């Protein structure tokens, strides 16, 4: 028991650190503080995830509800992923945020958000999950409306509204689960009390559908996706990077928890709800890519791409088989890496050139080669061209689809393919025109605009990871199959 206090460490560190950071006006000191916080969290998170399974009952709210932390395979996975990427982005932000102002506020919330995410990963029952989920919403709104412009505030409210509504739907499900589950503590394979559930299957399926749509809101799944293209572009680049790289994954985590740790895959498999959700996911995949393809504003395009890519994950999850699950988690990792990479690259471009429209980016590759090279790798990986990372995950997803679900699976695979093409269609032009501006581009007044190491290093690291994990996915796959083993 006493040992399990350590679970609080990765949560409280950044929370307290964030509060401290609010008061730090001096840039240098702040950077040190933030780095300290984030790194410590990273260390503690990784450290924690080497511990055996632990659980910590923090507070009993009476009735059947309590605030309860638990460390399990899924949690470890999430902890490492989040804390790792968070650190990199933090470094990027140091430089980027200089031109946004009110930095102490940004970093304060940024750091605290990390703590909340840790808590999300460690949440041991639905109440705790819901609690951290709501907190995450509230605490990330400031990141969205950071620059305080009218549209930023509007976007912030849209984000708030959608997320709260999603959470609300999830809460409805919570009430029902509390009645039909033996317990709302997560346990692999589900806790549904079949004696109660018998006869109420359809009710429960409906509830599941609701919860999926609710949590799916954060993951940008239709029909609640439209906050994402509004909120991401207005936020500062680092914020939008983590928003679409990580926060969307928080939704995914919640979905996994509910689907595999409360309902249980076996109960849901083959239900009409599953079919509905698969269709929704696929629709989102396709629509997202289409919209991204038509979108001209750089960050908005990336946001749409997020909509599409995260729904790959959801598709994989809703397949409810281990292959799909593996593919989904791989996609989680890769998309987290790549999308951060892309957003940061976009951020770098905006930071240096102030160009936000894709059509203006002619010859950008000549000005900031490193950035655009990284961008190129990210793009390739996102499209899923072997040997980059994206390929592996998509491969699994397609397999999972075709394996169990005849027509639907094949259609799914097809759609994945199409959307991959579209992805190529909306990402590659940036690269190509960036490097090959064409004849009428005057090389005369071309000056290097390469950003400083604060920005480039994280980009490079991310790009490297994207590629390397594609080439050597073995370890990762093992880990994931370790997770999925207990679920199926």
């Amino acid at each position, binding site marked *: 028991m006493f040992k399990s206090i350590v679970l609080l460490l990765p949560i409280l560190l950044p929370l307290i650190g964030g509060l401290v950071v609010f008061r730090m006006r001096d840039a240098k000191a702040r950077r040190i503080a933030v780095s300290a916080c984030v790194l410590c969290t990273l260390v503690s998170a990784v450290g924690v995830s080497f511990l055996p399974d632990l659980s910590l009952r923090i507070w009993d709210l009476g009735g059947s509800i309590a*605030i309860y932390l638990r460390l399990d395979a899924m949690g470890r996975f999430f902890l490492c992923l989040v804390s790792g990427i968070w650190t990199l982005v933090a470094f990027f932000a140091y430089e980027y945020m200089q031109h946004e102002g009110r930095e102490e506020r940004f970093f304060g919330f940024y750091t605290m958000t990390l703590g909340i995410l840790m808590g999300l990963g460690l949440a041991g029952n639905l109440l705790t999950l819901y609690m951290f989920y709501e907190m995450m919403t509230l605490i990330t709104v*400031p990141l969205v*409306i950071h620059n305080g412009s009218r549209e930023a505030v509007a976007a912030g*409210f849209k984000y708030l509204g959608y997320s709260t509504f999603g959470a609300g739907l999830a809460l409805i499900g919570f009430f029902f689960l509390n009645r039909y589950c033996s317990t709302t503590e997560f346990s692999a394979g589900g806790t549904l009390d079949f004696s109660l559930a018998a006869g109420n299957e359809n009710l429960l399926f409906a509830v599941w559908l609701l919860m999926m749509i609710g949590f799916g809101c954060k993951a940008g799944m239709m029909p609640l996706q439209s906050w994402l293209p509004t909120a991401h572009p207005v936020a500062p680049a680092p914020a939008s990077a983590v928003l679409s790289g990580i926060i969307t994954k928080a939704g995914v985590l919640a979905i996994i928890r509910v689907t595999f740790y409360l309902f249980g895959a076996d109960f849901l498999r083959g239900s009409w709800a599953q079919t509905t959700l698969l269709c929704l996911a696929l629709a989102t995949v396709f629509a997202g890519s289409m919209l991204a393809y038509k979108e001209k504003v750089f960050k908005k395009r990336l946001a749409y791409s997020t909509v599409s890519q995260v729904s790959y994950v959801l598709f994989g999850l809703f397949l409810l088989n281990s292959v799909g699950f593996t593919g989904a988690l791989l996609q989680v990792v890769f998309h987290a890496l790549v999308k951060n990479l892309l957003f940061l690259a976009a951020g770098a471009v905006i930071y240096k050139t102030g160009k936000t429209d894709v059509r203006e980016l002619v010859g950008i590759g000549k000005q900031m080669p490193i950035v655009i090279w990284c961008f190129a790798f990210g793009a390739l990986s996102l499209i899923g061209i072997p040997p980059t990372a994206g390929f592996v995950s998509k491969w699994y997803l397609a397999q999972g689809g075709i394996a169990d679900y005849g027509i639907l699976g094949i259609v799914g695979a097809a759609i994945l393919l199409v959307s991959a093409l579209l992805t190529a269609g909306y990402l590659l032009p940036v690269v190509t025109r960036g490097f090959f501006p064409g004849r009428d581009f005057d090389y005369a007044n071309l000056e290097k605009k390469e950003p400083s190491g604060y920005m480039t290093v994280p980009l490079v690291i991310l790009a490297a990871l994207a590629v390397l994990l594609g080439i050597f996915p073995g370890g990762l796959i093992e880990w994931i199959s370790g997770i999925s083993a207990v679920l199926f």
Partner: protein
Amino acid sequence: MPVWMLCLPVLFPILAGAVMLARPIEDRKKRQIYVAGAVIVNAVLALTVLIWTPDGVLTLLRFSDTMQIALQIDGAGRVFGILVSLLWPLTTFYSFEYMKHEGRENKFFGFFTMTFGVIEGVAFADNFLTLYLFYELLTLATLPLVMHSMDGRARYAGKKYLIYSLSGAAFAFIAMIFLLTYGSTLDFTFGGVLDPSRASGHETLLQTVFVLGFFGFGVKAAIFPFHGWLPDASVAPTPVSALLHAVAVVKAGVFAVIRLTYYGFGCDFLRGSWAQTVVMTAAVVTIVYGSAMALRTPHLKRRLAYSTVSNLSYILFSVTLMTPAGLVGGLSHMVFHAVIKITLFFCAGAIIYKTHREYVYQLDDFGRAMPVTMAAFTIASLGLMGIPPLAGFVSKWGIATAAVETGMPLAYAGVAALIVSALLTALYLMAVVLRAYFPAKGFDPASVKEVEDPNRLMTVPLLVLSAASVLLGLCASPLIAVFEQIAAGLL
């Protein structure tokens, strides 16, 4: 403890207030001492009576065998009584500071103190006649408070308040007469007083009457479509809006509805009837309507008033589930909402008192200007939105689980309504908070340069209350246990 002690918390403040009206105290210091003394003494009295309850009924007046003015404390009454007795002193101190800029303090504190007694009377009432008596007196005693400023808007609001409350009371009166005729007694009896031999054959009639009575008492609980008076009444001085229109008066309405439903007609008689459907629908509608209107209202106090409308219907919805669990949910939200909403109103009051700003869009950067106030506001808002583990969540949890357990489709709809309203709540409260902490672009900080937190008399109650709203959430379980006993008819 002798049973006659029961009448002290009721009569003492009424007398104290009356004395004050008859012999105004001009010196502010003396007045404050007098009022504080009276209120604290009475709070202590009330709490002693409520905790070491003397068993037995105290009959004050005996009209006839069936009709008496009698006091007794049972579980529900105890909850309400304690709630009021705790909140009243806080509000009193708050109003000492606040009323400085409203003037006519003798009148105000006179009626304010009287109302304390009347409310205790509502809580202690042993039968419907007594409840009705204090219910009417409540209207009369609070009317001057609503019309305090006596300008056009206040007069209008007062008149509206009067019309609504009295018509409500009139309907409640009808319900009472029917209970007198078809019931075995007027005394509150958990599970209802209807005499089956007399009632049989008149079910529809009695259910109609129940609906009448529900809406009659519901008027004070601001149930749609009889909620109109509450937002208008927010022209009253803030302590009034805070204590009376977020706690005392409106909760008295809710309390009366609980009495009517669980102690008058009885759930078993009503459960599953069309009457239940009607009242529950009304509650569900109100839940959503109130929040929606709150979102549309830029005037801070009116917004809070609408939010009260919505939240009161959480309670009513829970009550109309007519299950013990429902009663538990209702009671808990009654308590928690009281604490939270009074905090919010105090913040609004503090802002008005310091800056005379009444509209949400005037509050840019107040997070920095009035840190304590806005901190309290934020905590309370989170509580009201129902973020676990704060108080609001616990009660909402209770209500929703109760609703799910009934398995009625309408109850499910109610749950959905709760969620929608939670969303709207988040929007209309966060709108304030975000604006206060993240001023819009191009806002000049000079405009709030000399704005600052009010003095201790105001901030201390604020802090106490917001702390309470957190603690209540964390330590809810013993409270819930008590409510469960009440709902089981044990207390």
